């Protein structure tokens, strides 16, 4: 294999790639858009229900509201409370009458006025009512014979929850990698249809050299962008080496898939037709991270699961090599399979 020729081919491919306005534009715009989406999303998780309270005499149980997931903010007047709720500062406002405690202690039914904003979802209105009722039970000393004994499964994340934007990171990384797969597939298929590949093969360029050039080009395009994205969004702050390794293996995998897509395509539209279903399937594991519990164990059959899981665990839970070596190994296995398959199928088409 003549590396000088391979280098020349890579340089030519980069030129051609960025000459296709569609992919060039998508490459730059998408990267910027993903970064913007990341930074626009909230960086914190709101773990508590914020409520305004106006209580001339504060019932002692309300002081323990924090343990119920409520965050109470005391207001100076009922009017101030109503204005705050209308203004959307709080989900709800509770007015506790001055005689509330006296009534409860004398065995009478107390009364609470609860104000909701128009944007407060119905299920939250119901939740707040249930929580307040439960506090009233406790305040009157009505204990339950049933004691719920909680056991936390997995790491207890109360107070250190992962914001949605950080859950989104692996998905965006996969999409970036896959978009490059589409670009590479389009480039290769246009060369096959234009018969420039066949022309190249009558020069000193060998078929191994040709695939080496395409592989290097595809991997660098995908890897550099995904890496750039992770670096800009702070995704490399924890376990950077593992994340870099996972992205590199992911880039190799999508390049192999790109070869397969190119072998079945004639131009950009057929690349899209084959590429989008592949993109959607490979994005499924990322949905499992975004909305836990929505996907079952079969998701492990999708190769991108091991990339998504590795990036998610390393970036958000500081998982180390000992936790993720098996993910990276399986990913490497998929790389070998896809690159071999891609080269074999595309190679047959070229011959």
């Amino acid at each position, binding site marked *: 294999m003549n590396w000088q020729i391979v280098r020349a081919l890579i340089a030519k491919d980069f030129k051609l790639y960025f000459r296709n306005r569609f992919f060039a534009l998508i490459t730059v715009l998408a990267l910027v858009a993903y970064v913007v989406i990341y930074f626009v999303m909230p960086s914190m998780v709101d773990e508590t229900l914020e409520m305004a309270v106006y209580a001339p005499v504060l019932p002692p149980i309300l002081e323990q509201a924090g343990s119920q*997931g409520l965050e109470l903010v005391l207001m100076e007047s009922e009017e101030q409370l109503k204005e705050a709720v209308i203004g959307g500062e709080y989900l709800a406002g509770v007015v506790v009458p001055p005689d509330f405690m006296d009534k409860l202690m004398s065995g009478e039914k*107390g009364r*609470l006025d609860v104000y909701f904003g128009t944007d407060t979802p119905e299920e*939250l209105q119901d939740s707040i009512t249930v929580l307040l009722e439960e506090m009233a039970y406790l305040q009157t000393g009505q204990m339950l*014979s049933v*004691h719920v004994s909680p056991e*936390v499964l997995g790491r207890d994340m109360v107070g250190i929850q992962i914001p949605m934007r950080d859950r989104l990171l692996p998905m965006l990384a996969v999409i970036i990698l896959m978009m490059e797969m589409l670009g590479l597939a389009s480039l290769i298929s246009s060369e096959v249809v234009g018969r420039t590949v066949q022309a190249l093969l009558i020069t000193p360029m060998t078929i191994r050299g040709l695939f080496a050039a395409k592989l290097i080009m595809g991997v660098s395009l995908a890897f550099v962008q995904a890496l750039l994205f992770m670096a800009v969004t702070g995704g490399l702050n924890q376990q950077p080496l593992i994340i870099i390794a996972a992205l590199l293996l992911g880039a190799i995998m999508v390049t192999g898939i790109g070869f397969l897509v190119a072998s079945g395509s004639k131009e950009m*539209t057929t690349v899209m037709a084959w590429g989008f279903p592949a993109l959607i399937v490979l994005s499924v594991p990322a949905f499992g991270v975004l909305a836990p519990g929505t996907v079952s164990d079969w998701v492990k059959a999708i190769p991108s699961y091991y990339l998504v899981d590795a990036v998610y665990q390393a970036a958000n839970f500081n998982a180390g090599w000992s936790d993720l070596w098996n993910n990276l190994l399986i990913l490497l296995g998929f790389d070998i399979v896809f690159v071999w398959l891609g080269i074999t199928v595309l190679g047959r088409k070229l011959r």
Partner: protein
Amino acid sequence: MSVRRVAILLGKDFKYGSKGFVFILAIVAPILISLVLNLVFGTFFSQTAKLGINDQGNSRLVDLVSASDSVQTRTYASADDLKKAVEVGAVDMGVALPGNFDEDVLSGNSIVLPAYVWGESLAKNRGILLATINSAVRQLAGQEVPVHIETTTLGDTQSVPWSDRLLPLVLLVAVAMGGVMVPASLMVDEKQKRTLTALAITPATLGDILAAKGLMGVILALVMSIVILLMNQAFGVQTGLLMIVLGLGAVLAALFGLVLGVLIKDITTLFATIKGIGILLYAPVFVYMFPQIPQWIGKIFPTYYIVQPVVEISQQGGSWSAIATDVFILIGLDLILIGVVVFVLRRTKQFAV
């Protein structure tokens, strides 16, 4: 016009046109947009607390908790399934109710109820779930609530969820992409490749060709609208009425697509024109997105009469009487556009070249 020739042309368009970029985009774009909007604004990321229950007896607690709006309840056949569901985050908390749970509660026996809590569950969800379980147990035990809670909603605007506000946008994307873009691009493509000239020397008339392209647009717009409504669980109960309205809307879109296809000669101009008039096509959706905008502004735009009856039927459970005026206007617009297509065809006899 020959029905057989139209069917043959339609079959050809489906066979070859379906491989085109615009056709694929007309299918993929609305689905992707709907998925993304559902992800961002829909119930997919709903933070309603989720409770898993494994009921080893036949406890009334399950019904009591399921009746509560504050939590989503799922039942599991075994304690192992329940534990697994909690581990993967399918539910925030899981409780396994012993066989004689109700009897023990009623007799006042002390019970320790083991509960699994998902590590990533939010503090507020844990609080809500515990309170909901306790509330249900208290109801089961017959305890009287010591407080009367009077709830009032402040503010004079009715809250419409963003997922509902954005449905008209996705619906219009489906109708416009399938109904307008596909027939227009098919016509333009035939002109650019000069296959329209070839067709002109066959027995197929221009009417046959236009009918085939228009039908393709109608079918695609109709199918994609149905898909979008199903995806958004907004099909409503008046299926027949909804199908009629969607059909009339698809016809309007396809006729507009044919007008563009007849008048425009190349794909670049078509895309530029669609971009230019995009604001007119999509303008009515702003009325739904921002209810503060007066409704009459939406009524200026023809596409309003596609969206409004659909929204009325699917989201507000409207019947024929509620949509009759809009449907008659839609039929009127269809008839006007049929006239425009015929007029444009007669004026543009040289459209095939």
